[in-house]
């Protein structure tokens, strides 16, 4: 039996990779917890699970996409709209939750879409010490605008330019 068989310690970078989050965000989060960062930066699976829960990490793309659309960019916009519409907005959520589960070009594109949604006041960003958080936007027709994006019938101009 080797050391690593018996003891499951993970570096902060390994923990970040497991949680699909930037390691700096874990450092920022831990620094605000009681006792701050551990004396040695090695984390047990239990600590990593606590971090995930404490940071409110969510994977918005764990569920498969249900909408069908020939345009892959428009598909991502409609799927994101659906997820935003169905989300619980009683509390703010981490901005990276909206991307988590995506990779590569899809990840980068959805980031641009989120910025577009912020411009349209469908989402509101807030800076916090542990990173950017997102709240429901102040758009007067929030639900209607998102619903028309989900069914693909209409898109705000700021969003249309992203897929046309």
């Amino acid at each position, binding site marked *: *039996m080797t050391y690593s068989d018996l003891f499951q310690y993970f570096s902060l*970078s390994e923990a970040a990779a497991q949680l699909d989050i*930037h390691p700096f965000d874990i450092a920022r989060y831990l620094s*605000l917890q009681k006792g*701050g960062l551990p004396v*040695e*930066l090695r984390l047990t699976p239990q600590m990593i699970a606590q971090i995930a829960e404490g940071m409110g990490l969510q994977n918005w793309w764990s569920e498969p996409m249900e909408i069908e659309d020939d345009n892959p960019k428009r598909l991502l916009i409609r799927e994101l709209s659906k997820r935003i519409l169905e989300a619980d907005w009683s509390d703010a959520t981490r901005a990276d939750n909206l991307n988590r589960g995506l990779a590569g070009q899809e990840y980068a594109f959805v980031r641009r879409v989120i910025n577009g949604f912020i411009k349209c006041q469908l989402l509101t960003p807030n800076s916090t010490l*542990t990173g950017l958080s997102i709240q429901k936007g102040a758009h007067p027709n929030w639900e209607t605008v998102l619903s028309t994006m989900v069914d693909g019938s209409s898109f705000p101009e700021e969003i249309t330019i992203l897929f046309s």
Partner: protein
Amino acid sequence: MSASTERSDLVNQLKQVQDWGQQQASHWEKKQSELTRTIQQTESDISQLTKRLEELRAQQTDFEQQGQKREGDIAKRMRQAISVGLESAAQTLDTRNLLLQKQRKIRQNRVENVLMEPKFQERIAEFRQFQQTKEQLDQLPMSYRQAILQHHQTVRKELEPIFMAAEQPLPKTDKSPKCIGIIASIDPDFVQPEAMAVLLPVPFSIYTEPNSGEDSLHQVLTFRCVGAITAALRKIGLTDVSINFGELKGYLSIQVWLGGKKLNGDIRQSISLEFQQLRDYASELQSVRLGMEVTWLDPELLDDGENP
């Protein structure tokens, strides 16, 4: 005296006036002459002083130019010193990083030596079996589950020497201590700061290309500094500030925008306290005897100095 030589009072009076007039003329002629000489002398003095003044003014201009050049030279040498200091710190981190890997290996070997002891082998096998099957415990009847958990506690207690060895702090190197410099800067001043930057002697790629393996000393230092800055900001009431990460001279710059925010304390002191705690408690830094000191510098010294 005969009456024919006698002069009338009129003539005498006129003569006296004439004599007085000649005396006066002589007197004023002498005064005029003295004044003319004095004026000439003064004009000569003024000419010399004017010349001297021009020389002094030229000297003053020269001194001012030299002063400006000297300030420029000092700033240039300061920038060079900053570059050298950062390079030196980066090299120290490289060498101490190798040391950290060595210290980790020393601890791991100690634990593995304890693991090899025959008296633990049976219990280790049981412990491992529990680790592999613990997720299925919920499916077992309560009485089974309790018995297994109780037995696991006993096993864990008997393996305590191994766990203690694994939880020991990293051993300390016998190398001499080293200290690296970290640069901090506030713009425009500490009274109403608009922005703060902390420049770490680690490559910017630590931010842009996070890896998923064992943390290097560079990464550990960076994570801890990011944490220290975050904690310091919260302690002075800055909970909604934006922290950004940028590149400066190839190094990682942690930038905080403070414009318009109310500070409930001294930002310099808050940063200093958090870094002191980091220095005193971080096991990895203690292990390789690495210290750090934060130096506050004028933000102008952090640019390349080409724009006056």
